[in-house]
């Protein structure tokens, strides 16, 4: 992303004014419009697709496998793949580590336990078709939708198979499957990660490609059931020299993420409930 010095200084000045004038006139806590749909991959337990207005698009599929609990180090495995990019680049490793740091802690592990000896292993495969800005926010929204739309087959064999050696069997009627994240009971929702850009003493959410290029620093803030949760990391969104982060920035970012996080969760849940089970074509 190359900007001319004139553009760069224009953007920098516009964004450092209080309140920041963003190039597309968004307010500091406003997201870019998103096009999203879920459960469109027939052979995955849960799937979702999210597309941003700047052309960034991600597809996430959640698949489960019955495994022996004892020989599995972790029951959740996350894998990110970016179209036309080498899959061992550090960019991808950082994405995976940020996602893992939040998902592994905030995951209803007890839902995955099937019987004493067997449990579900969840494979979250993310595929980024194209991205202009830093794709972590896009990915986290997409994973949220995929997890909410994941359905696990109902166990029909006995639960305590400690003594009698028995492979778990399932009811193969798809309707009978139960959701990983039941909307009804007061169970909490999957976590989210938000990217916040920082310029001067302004903080703004969901930075676009140009805003990232001009921003002095960036923050990744975790959010789950209305609260700020770790990880909270600073990341340099542009490869130019970055300025330090003051506690003021962090507090501002916290308050912004806290209140717009609730809105985002509400909006995401409406998407999940609206097209629950129809495998429509997505384009």
């Amino acid at each position, binding site marked *: 992303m190359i900007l001319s010095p004139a553009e760069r200084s224009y953007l920098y000045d516009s964004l450092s004014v209080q309140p920041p004038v963003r190039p597309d006139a968004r307010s500091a806590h406003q997201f870019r*419009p998103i096009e999203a749909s879920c459960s469109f991959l027939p052979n995955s337990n849960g799937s979702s697709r999210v597309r941003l207005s700047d052309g960034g698009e991600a597809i996430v599929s959640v698949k489960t496998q019955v495994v022996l609990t004892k020989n599995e180090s972790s029951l959740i495995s996350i894998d990110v793949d970016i179209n036309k990019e080498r899959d061992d680049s550090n960019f991808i490793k950082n994405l995976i580590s940020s996602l893992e740091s939040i998902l592994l802690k905030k995951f209803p592990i007890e839902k995955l336990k099937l019987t004493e000896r067997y449990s579900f292993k969840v494979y979250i495969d993310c595929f980024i078709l194209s991205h202009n800005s830093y794709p972590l926010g896009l990915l986290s929204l997409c994973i949220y939708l995929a997890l909410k739309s994941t359905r696990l087959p109902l166990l029909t064999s006995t639960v305590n198979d400690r003594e009698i050696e028995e492979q778990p069997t399932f009811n193969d009627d798809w309707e009978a499957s139960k959701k990983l994240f039941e909307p009804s009971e007061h169970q909490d929702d999957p976590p989210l990660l938000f990217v916040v850009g920082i310029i001067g003493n302004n903080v703004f959410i969901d930075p676009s490609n140009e805003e990232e290029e001009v921003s002095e620093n960036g923050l990744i803030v975790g959010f789950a059931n209305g609260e700020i949760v770790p990880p909270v990391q600073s990341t340099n969104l542009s490869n130019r020299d970055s300025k330090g982060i003051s506690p003021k920035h962090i507090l501002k970012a916290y308050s912004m993420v806290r209140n717009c996080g609730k809105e985002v969760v509400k909006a995401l849940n409406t998407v999940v409930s609206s097209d629950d089970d129809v495998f429509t074509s997505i384009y």
Partner: protein
Amino acid sequence: MDVISIIRPKVTGYDEEDSDVEMSDVEVNLDKDSGLKTDVVTPGELVTDDPIWMRGHGTYFLNEKTYSAVAGSILKVNRLLSVIPLRGRYQPETGDHIIGRIKEVGHKRWKVDIGGKQDAVLMLGSVNLPGGVLRRKSESDELQMRNFLKEGDLLNAEVQSLFQDGAASLHTRSLKYGKLRNGYFVKVPSSLIVRSKNHSHQLPGNISIILGVNGYIWISKNVSSNFDSTNSKTNKHEAKLVNHGKEYNPGQGTLSIPKLEESSWEIYSDKNDPDISESIRSTIARYVNCIKCLSHCEIGITEQRIVTAYEASMAYENAGSLIDVEVMENIGSDVINGEKMRGNG
């Protein structure tokens, strides 16, 4: 306090009925005088087997049969037949007023990205150099090319000529061309820009806009142009304030030669005016959203339509809401209806 709007992907512009309807031979409406199809033609389709037509872009021929090579509409200009593709990259024509971004500094030339099939070329010989029009080129110019234009710089220029393979050669040998500053850059598909005589306009709210024919648009603060006599006093004041006494600024009209010399390094300066007010910035942002509305609804972009869209967008006090898809579509329909009512649509 709307934070986020998530919509379900509806397949744009398709009625949902099953697309497998048997391909009935839908009646083909023909253009009255030339007898050519007015509907879309697709690659490999026989356009005409009448040998009088000369074959232009987007077609190929075998003995006397002419076939279309792209999916698009047929265009006939006194016996030259060509097919214009619905979508495609910008095809430069001589005399086009375009905006480009410097991609590479080469030997006595710059490579400029204009969103076309190939990068355009800007020769060192076809730019205004500091010190006015009369100065001769010297080796020192070749050495300090980067002080004039470097990678990433935006400039507006005119297509001087075309190379044999279709690449464009640009020139900025007039005062209205040069480096762009004090504004923001937007990109739209080049097929949406309606060609007209003049592509740089002044818009209400003290904004000037350059509609590059290649779909690159520059919206900037209206810097003291003395053609616009109404607020010339304020502009002059601003210009004086800004240029610490030097009169000259790009896009400014005629000036005596000596003044041109000592202040001409200004035309390649990278610094914006220091005091671009907040209202100017939010007006520019609103115009950016209006242009994105027009592009989203695939409406041809003209100065008149941008102003109509801008006025229609005033209904939404917070310009940020203009980025939502439904709002875009209402603005688009307002523009079209507005035009139909005025009858010059």
